[in-house]
């Protein structure tokens, strides 16, 4: 290991990729897959470490900027830099560090984000869009990271940049309604839902179960059991069945299990489970209104997050229940009455709104309660679970 002395001429290792970010520099070492984060004074030192001047020269330049008596911090920083591989002696290698390209920064941001380092990922992505401002997908990723680090206004601006170039993107337009605090539509449009799940289907199960610790179906069947007890052999409708998560907990109580969903991609996943007697691609409210069938159990698990006002869907479900039938539904629990469109583009409902929709549809509340639903940006999301009785 090379220990510096005041006469050494340090420089940034030629393999290092450097980039300014809003609070200093990042320096990525691809040989060790390590990222160094430099504060502003350290960034100045890094710039001065170009192999042309000694540590003593650098100390003389930067020392006056440091607290009194702290000039030797320059030497210590250089030593740390050499140990970490950020710096080398000028005699060790020719060449010099180069700056990240926008693509390299965006790729690094993606990897950092995957490993939970969202603050650093955000800083890298912000620099990536500064370097390549007409890369609209990079703006989308920045918006995503802004939301991860709680920068709502910046997220809105980044998503807006993406949306300006992608007018056809229904999902982002819907998300912007929330981020602009515009009056929410009664529900997310079919196009929004189809678009979300077309892109999401491939990684849906892994993300929901592994990344987000999704527990909706387990809590849902507990709520249902609290009302129907041990009844089984029932005619069950999984409304908005998606990939069939809820179907796995509904199957044991069902003699006949039908799944309906708007997304063909998600229904294909459900089909592969082999647990449904019938699967149909359809918009759920319309399907309920058009269907002549009656069910013992209609279950809508984590589906009404795309609906604001619940009156119409609850009434439609009530009309398809057998005597003693139940409509079980789960949502995100909202604090605002009657409901709100959250910054994720999903609706969250107040329990009183569910009660009112039930009453209006002639249903009684058999159960209503709250439980952990899943994680979101590292924060637990509380679910609202209700079982309405005919």
């Amino acid at each position, binding site marked *: 290991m090379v220990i510096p002395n005041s006469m050494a001429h340090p420089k940034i290792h030629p393999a290092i990729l450097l980039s300014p970010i809003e609070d200093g520099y990042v320096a990525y070492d691809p040989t060790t*897959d*390590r990222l*160094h984060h430099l504060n502003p004074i350290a*960034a100045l*030192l890094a710039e001065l470490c170009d192999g042309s001047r000694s540590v003593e020269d650098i100390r003389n330049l930067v020392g006056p900027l440091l607290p009194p008596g702290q000039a030797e911090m320059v030497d210590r920083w250089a030593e740390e830099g050499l140990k970490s591989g950020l710096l080398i002696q000028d005699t060790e290698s020719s060449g010099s560090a180069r700056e990240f390209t926008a693509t390299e920064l965006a790729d690094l941001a993606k990897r950092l984000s995957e490993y939970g*380092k969202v603050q650093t990922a955000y800083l890298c992505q912000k620099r990536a869009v500064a370097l390549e401002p007409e890369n609209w997908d990079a703006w989308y990723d920045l918006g995503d990271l802004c939301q991860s680090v709680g920068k709502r206004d910046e997220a809105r601006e980044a998503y807006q940049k993406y949306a300006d170039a992608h007018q056809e993107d229904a999902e982002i337009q819907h998300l912007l309604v929330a981020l602009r605090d515009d009056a929410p539509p009664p529900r997310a449009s079919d196009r929004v839902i189809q678009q979300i799940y077309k892109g999401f289907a491939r990684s849906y199960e892994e993300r929901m179960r592994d990344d987000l610790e999704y527990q909706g179906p387990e809590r849902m069947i507990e709520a249902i059991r609290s009302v129907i007890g041990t009844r089984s052999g029932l005619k069950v409708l999984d409304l908005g069945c998606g990939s069939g998560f809820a179907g796995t907990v509904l199957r044991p109580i069902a003699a006949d299990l039908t799944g309906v969903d708007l997304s063909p991609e998600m229904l294909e996943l459900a089909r592969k489970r082999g647990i449904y007697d019938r699967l149909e691609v359809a918009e759920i409210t319309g399907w309920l209104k058009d269907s002549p069938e009656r069910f013992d159990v209609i279950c809508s698990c984590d589906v009404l997050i795309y609906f604001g006002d619940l009156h119409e869907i609850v009434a439609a479900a009530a009309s398809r229940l057998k005597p003693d039938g139940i409509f079980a539904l789960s949502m995100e629990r909202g604090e605002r009455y009657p409901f709100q469109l959250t910054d994720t583009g999903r609706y969250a409902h107040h329990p009183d709104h569910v009660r009112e929709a039930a009453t209006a549809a002639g249903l009684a509340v058999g159960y209503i309660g709250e439980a952990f639903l899943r994680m979101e940006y590292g924060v637990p999301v509380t679910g609202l679970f209700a079982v309405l009785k005919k």
Partner: protein
Amino acid sequence: MAHDSLKSLDNALAHVKQDRRGFLKTLIVGSAAAAIPVMTSQAVAQDDGGDEGKKKKKKKKEE
């Protein structure tokens, strides 16, 4: 930042690439006075709860 410090900063920045001077000056003037150099390092591919402990959200653009 005191006048003398600003003068020292300009003196140091005179040795830095021209296209970095304005950026670094803004950063250093805007940061805490009399800061010392700090470098933090982390392995990128290490899921240690992250520097902020937050995971990605539900939906991710994959088209």
